[in-house]
């Protein structure tokens, strides 16, 4: 698989939120405003790359040689949780500015299915380290595209006349359905089939 296809595949064709349904909790929770969506996307990009590297190295250097493949779920999530907590502390201590913009989203990342989802997909697709990184970046950009696009729609939805029982989540879901429909159009773009 050439690198561009991996990146585009994860970014558009198989968008992690709209096509694979991974990462929906924060997607609906945080996308109420554009500003929080940007912060969340930056945090996801940052942690997803870190998680992809760490999980790839752990899997191929520790788990496979020792035959402990069955521990991958426990190891990955433990490492991601530890990683996030550590990164949060470092940011809070040394990079105050970055922390105020990015840091508050970090705890949200540990329970984000997208991060763990990427680590598992990297294993399933048998990517090497470079491909894993590209896939992580592509997915994070896809996450960002979906959540920012959706935040703009949701802000507009706030003001449009909707019947009370459909305000909030229901209309958001229907909105997401339409955005997902649009993304469906990207299927097998450039022959990508991730």
């Amino acid at each position, binding site marked *: 698989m050439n690198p561009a296809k991996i990146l585009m595949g994860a970014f558009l064709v198989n968008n992690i939120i709209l096509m694979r349904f991974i990462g929906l909790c924060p997607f609906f929770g945080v996308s109420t405003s554009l500003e929080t969506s940007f912060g969340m996307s930056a945090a996801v990009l940052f942690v997803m790359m870190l998680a992809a590297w760490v999980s790839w190295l752990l899997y191929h250097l520790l788990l496979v040689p020792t035959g402990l493949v069955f521990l991958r779920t426990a190891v990955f*999530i433990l490492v991601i949780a530890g990683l996030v907590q550590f990164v949060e502390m470092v940011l809070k201590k040394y990079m105050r500015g970055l922390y105020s913009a990015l840091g508050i989203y970090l705890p949200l990342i540990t329970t984000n299915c997208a991060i763990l989802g990427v680590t598992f997909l990297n294993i399933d697709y048998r990517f090497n380290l470079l491909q894993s990184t590209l896939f992580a970046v592509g997915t994070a950009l896809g996450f960002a595209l979906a959540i920012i696009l959706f935040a703009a729609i949701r802000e507009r939805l706030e003001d449009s006349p909707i019947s009370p029982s459909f305000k909030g*989540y229901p209309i958001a879901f229907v909105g997401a359905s339409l955005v997902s*429909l649009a993304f469906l159009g990207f299927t097998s773009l450039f022959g990508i089939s991730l």
Partner: protein
Amino acid sequence: MSAPSRWKYFADGIIKENPVLILMIGLCPTLATSVSARDALGMAAAVTFVLVGSNVVVSLIRKVVPGSVRIPIFIIIISTFVTIIDYVLQAYQPALYRVLGVFVPLIVVNCIILGRAEAFAYGHGVFDSLLDALGKSAGYALVMLVMGSIREIFAAGTWFGVAVTPAWFRSAPVLFMIFPPGAFFLIGILKGIVNRLTAGKV
């Protein structure tokens, strides 16, 4: 703790505090694996196993767990149960495992389980936590059954594999329901109906 209020822990989970439609957590597996009623129930069973297991264990050790590191410990407990169900499914239900795919290991980050472990099991007794887990799982299974059935009937015209619709309907299936947009649309409508029904009460 008198019996009726304990029963409430169980009953709440199904309607009043239904994890998916009221608390709006645990959406990823709900939309992804409710492609057919059988797969949806398969996923619900997996989530039930993990939720019940983790709630019970968490409430068992809650007095011993140090506060600052409780999240990693809960995560390890949950991932243990998830790996167990992951390998059990792979061994004894390969067809179902292939459909659920990556969503079985993803149960570990499912907001319902960690949410209930933190919000409930960490502060309640074993029996109450068990009731709460069963209640939430029942609620989750209910939503999965409804979603799975609707999507299967529309897309394949069958219910649990049994043809329930006339032949002409099956020849022109509503494939929209199988694709991701259909899932979003369906849960949006369901949430709208739930809002409508609970408008007065909640």
